[in-house]
């Protein structure tokens, strides 16, 4: 199912990128006219001014369900959603227990339907498995916002918020092209996540496509499993296999903790390492400048928070303020920028702790 999805994603990147910018703007200015919470640490942008969506409207009850927080990024998804919802005086968020059991997650969504919530923001453990219950929620007149893992039927969600996996690979590949330049003998290595997942395949495809633009290929590739111990094991093997590396892309900053442990154990520092997802500890290493980690590519952990912002707008029949369009877009795909020491300060406030 990955091929057609990837194509559609690519086509929509343009529109979605715009939408994403608008969403972030909405997020930044949401507590501009004095809501109860006062300025929070997230409010660093300060720009904008006079976003009509910031004003409290009718109260919106939103049910939220996501997989278990067994991974730094996933943990940040829920905490960012809760924090963002707390900034709105007109949002009542109901958070179900994070679970990797689709049976339980379905019953949570059913409970929200029985409860008559206005909207459900759902990051399904398995998109296909939750499609049927999401359709039932839509039929019951509930606004369903699908986050990160797509349903198998587009009618099952009013809005879909996605990261850009192919774009992550492209961003990482383009950055590495800049670094290794026109050295035709450069050794480029890749440490992927769980190899059988479509998202990993999209990331790797984007990476090799971007490398091809500057005449590079992936010389050494291993796959881990998004865990710290998995990253450590995969990186140890990789470093053993490749005695000299010029650039390394690691798909995921959570497993990156293990990758860095392996690099330190091997005493290697001859290469440039690029991370993925954008965790706070990787960004701090980038800012410090004395680590092999020179950059990371963002896969926003604020997707569910944006899902809540969009659910609120749809229920209140508002639009994205900076777009001309009078309805909230059906698909919002977030951008995958490269974070380096030059712009790290911009991204650190929304980074997640792994």
């Amino acid at each position, binding site marked *: *199912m990955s091929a057609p999805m990837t194509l559609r994603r690519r086509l929509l990147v343009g529109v979605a990128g715009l939408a994403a910018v608008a969403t972030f703007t909405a997020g930044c200015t949401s507590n501009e006219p004095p809501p109860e919470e006062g300025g929070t640490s997230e409010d660093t942008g300060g720009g904008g001014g006079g976003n009509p969506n910031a004003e409290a409207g009718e109260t919106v009850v939103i049910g939220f369900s996501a997989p278990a*927080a067994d991974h730094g990024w996933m943990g940040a998804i*829920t905490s960012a959603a809760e924090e963002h919802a707390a900034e709105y005086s007109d949002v009542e*968020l*109901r*958070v*179900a*227990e*994070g679970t*990797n*059991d*689709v*049976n*339980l997650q*379905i*019953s*949570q969504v*059913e*409970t*929200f*339907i*029985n*409860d008559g919530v206005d909207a459900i923001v759902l990051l399904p*453990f*398995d*998109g*296909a*498995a*939750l*499609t*049927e219950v999401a359709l039932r929620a839509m039929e019951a007149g509930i606004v369903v916002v699908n986050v990160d893992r797509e349903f*198998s039927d587009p009618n099952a969600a009013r809005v879909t918020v996605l990261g850009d996996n192919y774009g992550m690979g492209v961003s990482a590949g383009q950055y590495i092209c800049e670094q290794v330049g026109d050295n035709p003998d450069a050794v480029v290595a890749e440490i992927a996540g*769980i190899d*059988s*997942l479509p998202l990993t395949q999209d990331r790797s495809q984007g990476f090799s496509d971007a490398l091809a633009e500057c005449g590079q290929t992936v010389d050494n590739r291993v796959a881990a499993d998004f865990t710290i111990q998995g990253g450590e094991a995969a990186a140890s093997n990789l470093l053993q296999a490749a005695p000299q590396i010029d650039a390394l892309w690691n798909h995921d900053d959570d497993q990156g903790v293990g990758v860095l442990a392996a690099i330190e154990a091997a005493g290697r520092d001859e290469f440039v390492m690029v991370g993925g997802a954008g965790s706070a500890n990787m960004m701090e290493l980038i800012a410090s400048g004395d680590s092999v980690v020179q950059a990371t590519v963002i896969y926003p952990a604020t997707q569910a928070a944006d899902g809540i912002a969009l659910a609120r707008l749809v229920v209140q029949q508002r639009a994205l303020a900076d777009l001309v369009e009078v309805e909230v877009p059906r698909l919002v795909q977030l951008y995958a920028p490269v974070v380096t020491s030059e712009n790290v300060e911009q991204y650190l406030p929304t980074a997640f702790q792994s």
Partner: protein
Amino acid sequence: MSAFTDPAPPAETIHERPGRFTLPGSLARNLGLVIALLVLCAVGWFTADVRFLDGDNFVTILRFASVIGVVSVGMTFVITGGGIDLSVGSVLGLASVWASTIATQTIAGDVHWLVVVFTACAVGAACGLVSGILVAYGKVVAFIATLAMMVAARGLAEIISKKRSQILDVPPFTDFFQARPLGLPTLVWVFLIVAAAGWVLLNRTTFGRRTIAVGGNVEAARLAGIRVRTHTVALYVLCGFCSGLAGAMMIARTTVGSSTHGSLYELDAIAAVVVGGTLLIGGRGTIVGTVLGVLIFSTLNNIFTLNNLSISAQAIVKGAIIVIAVLLQQRFANRPGSSSP
């Protein structure tokens, strides 16, 4: 008193203990569970009011309980017979994957949708057969044999499905399970039928009495002429069959077969069985208790969701509920230090 010498369910047996209020064993244990469930319902009522008492909400609780419930009924037999089956969750996943492959779906489309259910049950029973033979004839400890099955079944499921979700496109299958005969979803009916059949099998047949005998004292059971090894294999096949059926139910609920289905269900099932009053060392089993145990946990999940409780607090409360349920059983049960039935 060994269960073997008194294999009949002791529901009617009144143990006289002057000077102390006691109730017969199984009735007392179930009463403790019913009280725990009623307390939970009261909590649900006070905290969520009509949202909890709504009919649709009870259907939601029952639908969630039905998959784990069927697994737990099978687990009750294995544990009563003195064993343990750690592979139920993985076997559920494998059965769901096998029953939703393109080949199975094609045959099901050509022949009958029941092929999906039959495939799932057959895969489950086959896994149970392997575990049972390893335990009974290979003399492998049940914990190890089923641990091996747990790992292997999950791996095989991942290989067959290539870790993708396999969407089942057999409309009659979906229609059957989405129907609501007599107002209850088909899944709930399946659970009720399995539980009733399990109760009859354990309490009213020689198979059930032999199960209790084998679990209570293997040597005595063997001397009494029970073919212990054959019986043990049968118990694991039965448990595997239930896991396979639960795999088909999982497809019905999610419309997909996936190697991730049923993850950690072995723990949910064991918790429900033990909270229900079945002895983990074997020799005593109760299907009614198991069903109540499953209902307690699914009601608990429902109340958490309704009340928007913090995720970390939920885990603590679950642990507390397990302890409270067991304490209530001990308080009411007539068990002064002995392992009477």
